[in-house]
């Protein structure tokens, strides 16, 4: 009986007893969740537009952050280092299209997947070679990101300003992306390719252009994620483990759903923090590494098609 109480009753009692603390836990989860969402989003975009399961998504986050910080370390001011990093991400997208996707077009999916593993190791090696392997500090201040904190309820609820900024920037990026995909000619073409690449080809959309574009967008998203994550910890290749958090998010949200990636990321982020805080002690901590998968699997039991599994339209 005792054990059942500690698992099923006590945690909820704790939540109700200190709702502000509970709110704090949710906020922390939300902030991490945003980063999971962004990583999953970059992944989903590439998967939808080119059918490639991009193993390198997590490393792209580190590579982007490392490039930015590394350039700054070499004496380039932040306001120049940032656009250069964006250019580097473009060069990466361009090279991946030319050297990986184009030569391997029409090959089985697994070959393309392996090729992205190759890209992963290339980025690790290349990044270390140029900027060195030791952990670095994100140049938060130089990027004009705030670093104080705001408190509510007599200092009981503490929100870091950087977290608030991260949420704001992520929201802005999503609005931008939605407008781009919904309103611009090339955005519509990108969705057309995701729907039916043969038909897109037939109306004159160049798949190569779209692939470069979608890898570039994912690169930008990776850069945003890298800056935000780097501001909370160091910038090092250890960061890429967050990519493994993208997998449960994708299981939950579906590999082809943009909304799924966003909502899935938030659910995993928040679920994880709540689980860790209220149940973590029961299993001796460190449940963060597998809890995300648990949450995803439990969800799948009830919704096998995933959260938003894109509706498959049956033809009449």
């Amino acid at each position: 009986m005792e054990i059942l109480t500690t698992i099923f009753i006590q945690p909820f009692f704790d939540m109700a007893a200190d709702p502000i603390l509970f709110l704090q836990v949710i906020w922390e989860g939300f902030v991490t969740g945003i980063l999971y969402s962004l990583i999953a989003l970059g992944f989903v975009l590439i998967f939808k537009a080119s059918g490639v399961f991009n193993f390198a998504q997590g490393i792209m986050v580190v590579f982007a952050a490392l490039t930015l910080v590394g350039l700054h370390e070499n004496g380039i001011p932040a306001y120049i280092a940032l656009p250069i990093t964006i250019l580097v991400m473009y060069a990466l997208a361009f090279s991946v299209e030319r050297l990986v996707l184009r030569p391997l077009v029409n090959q089985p999916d697994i070959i393309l997947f392996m090729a992205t593993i190759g890209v992963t190791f290339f980025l690790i090696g290349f990044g270390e070679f140029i900027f060195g392997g030791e952990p670095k500090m994100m140049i938060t201040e130089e990027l004009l990101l705030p670093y104080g904190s705001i408190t509510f309820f007599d200092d009981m609820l503490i929100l870091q300003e950087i977290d608030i900024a991260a949420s704001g920037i992520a929201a802005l990026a999503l609005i931008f992306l939605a407008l781009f995909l919904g309103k611009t000619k090339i955005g519509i073409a990108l969705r057309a390719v995701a729907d039916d690449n043969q038909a897109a080809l037939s109306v004159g959309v160049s798949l190569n252009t779209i692939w470069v574009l979608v890898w570039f967008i994912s690169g930008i998203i990776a850069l945003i994620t890298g800056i935000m994550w780097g501001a909370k910890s160091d910038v090092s290749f250890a960061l890429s483990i967050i990519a493994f958090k993208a997998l449960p998010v994708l299981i939950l949200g579906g590999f082809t759903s943009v909304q799924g990636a966003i909502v899935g990321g938030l659910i995993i982020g928040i679920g994880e923090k709540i689980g860790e805080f209220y149940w973590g002690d029961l299993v001796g901590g460190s449940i963060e590494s597998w809890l995300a998968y648990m949450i995803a699997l439990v969800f799948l039991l009830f919704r096998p098609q995933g959260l938003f599994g894109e509706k498959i339209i049956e033809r009449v």
Partner: protein
Amino acid sequence: MLSVNNIEVIYDHVILVLKGVSLDVPKGSVVAILGANGAGKTTTLKAISNLLQAERGDVTKGSIDFDGTQVHDLSPNELVKRGCIQVMEGRHVFEHLTVEENLLTGAYTRKEGRAAISEDLEKTYSYFPRLKERRTSQAGYTSGGEQQMLTIGRALMSKPKMILLDEPSMGLAPQLVEEIFEIVKDLNQREGVSFLLAEQNTNIALRYADYGYVLENGRVVMDGEGAELRENEDVKEFYLGMGGAGRKSFRDGKNYRRRKRWL
């Protein structure tokens, strides 16, 4: 406008599908490629639009000339820009895009401003009033007939000189097929778009086509004016199902001799 000279097409480096096909589409005409399933109609159209490469198909002999240029080294994108666009068989609409977004993708290669594009959008709607009613619906939820109209309207948005239309009648009720062919005729006469269409439905295709080619096993076995072909005894027998003794099997000895003569 278009001339295909003795082309040979091979899939996957080994499967020989077209064995010397030649045909001509004069400017402003409607030309039909007829033939049973598997005859090579789609392959011929894709060889022209260069969509073949995406299917591991290759034109290994012969040449294709569209509007004065060899198409062999052009990408589908460049061909659409030059005015040659294919409407693929099986109604390939972008299911999760709205009807209007689908039409806009047709204008992807055009460089004119928004004004010109929206003018053409209205013109397209004037040919397909049904699409206007459904402009905000997701294309995947429209009917088969509407989807076929949408793919033709989408092609029209590219301002084509020529549309390669693959099996527009496939899986549609006869009335709808008639409606679609009427629109094809309209587009041909009023917009001056040339058409090369592939059809198994010989009857309707020959009523609308100026000229027809009969394809069998990757070879042109007969060609002639639309009206002439419709009166041809062999066509009547094999493709219009009007032979005296009913439709005969291809293995029939008499058929075999006849087909020999066509070669």
